[in-house]
């Protein structure tokens, strides 16, 4: 599964994307954030306050309680500030 990071999430983790294979217990987007936060200091810093992190599965906005299912691409980022 490809994981992408944008803006300060990307800066804190120190990379823009990576290929990861989360364990079976990771069912929802929130589970994935918790699992990522345990992968090291830079990840726990990035996912320090998971409430403010937004997520997209296969390029569609999703809520934290959404099941990951067979997602190919999951992105994490701060609230958008375009326009």
């Amino acid at each position, binding site marked *: 599964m490809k994981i992408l990071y*944008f803006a300060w999430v*990307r800066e804190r983790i120190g990379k823009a994307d990576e290929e990861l294979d989360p364990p079976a217990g990771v069912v929802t987007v929130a589970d994935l954030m918790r699992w990522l936060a345990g992968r090291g200091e830079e990840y726990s810093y990035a996912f320090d306050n998971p409430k403010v992190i937004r997520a997209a599965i296969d*390029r*569609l906005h999703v*809520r934290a309680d959404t099941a990951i299912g067979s997602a190919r691409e999951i992105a994490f980022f*701060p609230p958008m*500030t*375009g*326009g």
Partner: protein
Amino acid sequence: MAVRLQHEPLDAVAEVAALTRGRTDIGAIVTFTGICRGSEDGAPITALTLEHYPDMAEAEIARHIEEAERRWALLGVTVIHRYGRIAPGEEIVLVITASSHRQDAFAAAEFLMDYLKTRAPFWKQVERAGHGSWVDAKSADDQAADRWTATGHDAAAE
């Protein structure tokens, strides 16, 4: 409908011309241009750098244009969003809506801007004297976007 993400400066004239060429059914055109201001929260800035999620942004904007086309009687819509480093005074975003009657064009342009501000995957970083900081999302923008959903919640994420 046209959606483009580009670093290059915008050409509003060419875009309006492309939308209206050879047509006599359009009675109203609204354009919105968002410009990089020289200060943010009262302090001067050197530039803005816009990061974006390319594959998602284009599809996301296209979906919102389709939603606008369902809600209002539109005869043409163009959205162009720039990314990369943008200096004060330069344009960031251009929305053009065309319709027979003005209400549709106005409402659709406001709707699209509210959505671009809160849902399109772009992030602004402010550059001040060489160091960068990320712009915080504004709750006023969320409230503006919420106007368009019946429940006041963010229907697109549910």
